[in-house]
């Protein structure tokens, strides 16, 4: 057994990702075959930039899904002889390699990078969805009714936007803050918005068919409400409303706080975008037609205005996931929230940067990973924008 050279490192790196390549090939083959039937998603495959971006994003999504098959070592396995070893070093027992070297504790940089994608892919899109729910639920009435409501909500949004993000994180994401239970109270409020959104969405459409509506809203409230309570409540903290037996989502306090603060930072921007779009769209003829038909305000907002604002919103959604990824990295970089052992990219960059002059690889690998994911999302957004402008 001998050390890998750069060529062997590349080859090992490439083969290790085989499930991802397979999944990517299948996705592309199916998508390109049926692209005419797939709407905006299919049109993405007409633009080179969009295709490249989509490929990079899906690479990381598949990596997160198949992470267990890709990694070569456990993310917390420490082998003291492998401390700061360069890429391609053989393990002391001679049986395997550290493809991208070892970090300052002798852990495998490659496996940690792969597992780190899981943290991002789990949190970033979900947090963005929540931010959109909050932004939409507040932005629609603010733009539609204007007046006092708009003034108050916009003032609050500007208040949060005037906060430097890092300062906000430093104030919110601290152990003392977790102790006071404030993030959980924020979660209580913020996580309520998806429920409100879905109920209002269904009610405004199906209120003419009360039976169907009652069933649908009951289903949303029971399932969503349970998920909501399970997410928010955590035994032995300030908010422990649900008995442990029913609490099927165990979210550790530090993950919850990271999630909540990322949603909190993103929501005002989404609110502003939605409000601007509504102000523009509400002067259109089809809105006036719906008003004349006697439709309720929420029906108009959710079923007339919102679908017509989807183009810019989808593009912004992609960009915002990228931005959320950057924010998560920032949190990790300052050692806030996530535990220092967590393999997420921000924390690994933070741990690696201290020894950069001796061993740069533990920091540069997650840095490049994070950069490629955000770049992929930006390219995807660019492709989507181009294609949605074309109709």
């Amino acid at each position: 057994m001998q050390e890998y050279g750069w060529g062997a490192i590349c080859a090992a790196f490439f083969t290790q990702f085989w499930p991802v390549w397979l999944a990517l090939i299948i996705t592309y083959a199916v998508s390109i075959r049926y692209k005419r039937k797939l709407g905006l998603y299919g049109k993405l495959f007409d633009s080179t930039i969009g295709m490249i971006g989509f490929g990079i994003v899906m690479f990381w999504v598949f990596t997160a899904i198949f992470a267990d098959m890709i990694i070569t070592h456990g993310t917390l396995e420490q082998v003291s002889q492998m401390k700061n070893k360069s890429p391609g070093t053989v393990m002391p027992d001679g049986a395997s390699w550290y493809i991208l070297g070892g970090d300052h504790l002798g852990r495998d940089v490659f496996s940690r990078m792969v597992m780190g994608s899981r943290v991002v892919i789990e949190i970033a899109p979900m947090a963005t969805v929540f931010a959109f729910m909050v932004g939409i639920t507040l932005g629609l009435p603010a733009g539609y009714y204007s007046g006092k409501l708009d003034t108050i909500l916009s003032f609050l949004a500007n208040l949060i936007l005037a906060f430097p993000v890092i300062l906000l994180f430093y104030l919110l994401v601290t152990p003392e803050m977790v102790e006071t239970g404030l993030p959980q109270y924020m979660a209580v409020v913020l996580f309520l918005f998806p429920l409100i959104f879905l109920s209002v969405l269904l009610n405004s459409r199906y209120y003419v068919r009360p039976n169907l509506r009652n069933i649908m809203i009951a289903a949303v409230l029971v399932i969503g409400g349970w998920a909501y309570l399970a997410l928010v409540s955590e035994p032995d903290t300030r908010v422990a409303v649900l008995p442990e037996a029913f609490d099927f989502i165990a979210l550790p306090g530090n993950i919850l706080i990271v999630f909540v603060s990322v949603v909190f930072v993103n929501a005002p921007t989404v609110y502003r975008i939605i409000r601007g779009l509504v102000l523009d769209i509400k002067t259109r003829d089809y809105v006036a037609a719906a008003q004349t038909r006697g439709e309720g305000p929420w029906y108009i907002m959710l079923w007339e205005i919102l679908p017509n604002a989807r183009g810019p919103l989808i593009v912004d959604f992609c960009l915002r996931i990228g931005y959320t990824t950057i924010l998560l990295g920032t949190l990790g970089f300052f050692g806030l929230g996530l535990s220092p052992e967590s393999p997420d990219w921000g924390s690994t960059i933070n741990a690696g940067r201290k020894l950069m002059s001796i061993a740069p690889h533990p920091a540069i690998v997650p840095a490049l990973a994070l950069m490629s994911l955000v770049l992929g999302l930006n390219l995807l957004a660019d492709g989507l924008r181009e294609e949605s402008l074309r109709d």
Partner: protein
Amino acid sequence: MLTFLLRRLFTMVLTALCLTFVVFYLTNLPPNLEKVAKSEAGARITDTEVESWLAKHGYAQPVLVRYGEWLGVVPGWTGTSDSGKATGRCVDAYPDAQTPPRFCGVLQGYWGFSTVFKENVGGIIITRLGLTGILMFWVMVLMVPAALIIGVLAGMREGSKLDRTLSTVSIASTATPEYVSGVILIVVFASSLVGLKWFKGTATSAMDGITFENFFLPVLTIALYGIGYIARMTRASMTEVMTAQYIRTARLKGVSFTNVVMKHALRNALIAPFTVIMLQFPWLLNGVVITETLFNYKGFGWTLVSAAGNNDIQLLLGCSVVAVVVVLVTQLISDVGYVFLNPRIRIS
């Protein structure tokens, strides 16, 4: 115009008050105060001792009263120490004065006392802001012209090869946060792995004397993230201007392409980027915090991080005030400047 300005100023002051109160509240939560008491009076003191320490040092009053004291609109707390000497917020503030003033807060120029640096917060912030100011100046010198040139070049012929290349470059640069580009730049230009070693990986020595070698990497790190964004805005505004009627007229009159771009298009195309550049300041603030931490340059951002990490309440409050004011003032300037630059907008 005057009413517009006054209304904006009023909103600004209100926002600043709300934000500083939020920061004040969040930094003065019971667990934080307990930590302060324990770090000042010993880690092993009991809960009752903590409470009496807090009461003796003016922390027992309601949050609003203490916020007023800190702001300087409520008289500072007073009391007597165990040895019978008069104590109080204003006694700490002006230890040499015979009779301390009744009010001593931010409005009177007293920003509190840093428990970590053992110095007045006002003094620390001014020195640190000076260091950050130098950094920001060079960032602006590098970022603004580079971004505008890239944006104008990309936008003058939409869809050309040059446009595609430059647009991709700007997307890539917006996709690279400071902590990624900083790490990459250090590895490429300052580590033994690549072996170039053109620059230094830290900017600690730049605090005494700035050289190209120790200051270029931090400046480039901050500038890179902003360049992409400003360039894209400039490009968008440039492509819009280039399709305008008067540009076509100028071209048909026979004015050369260079002249059209330089004399006709440029001025109108630069209105939108102006706003964007001003609104970049809050983002630059983020970049400054990350970059100063990464390069160990002890400016304002570094101070903010160390104040937050060490539970240095007064210093953190001071830093937040500065940060919030910077953000609000740039917002105001960008609004007012936009109105001045764009004759089509008139505010009644």
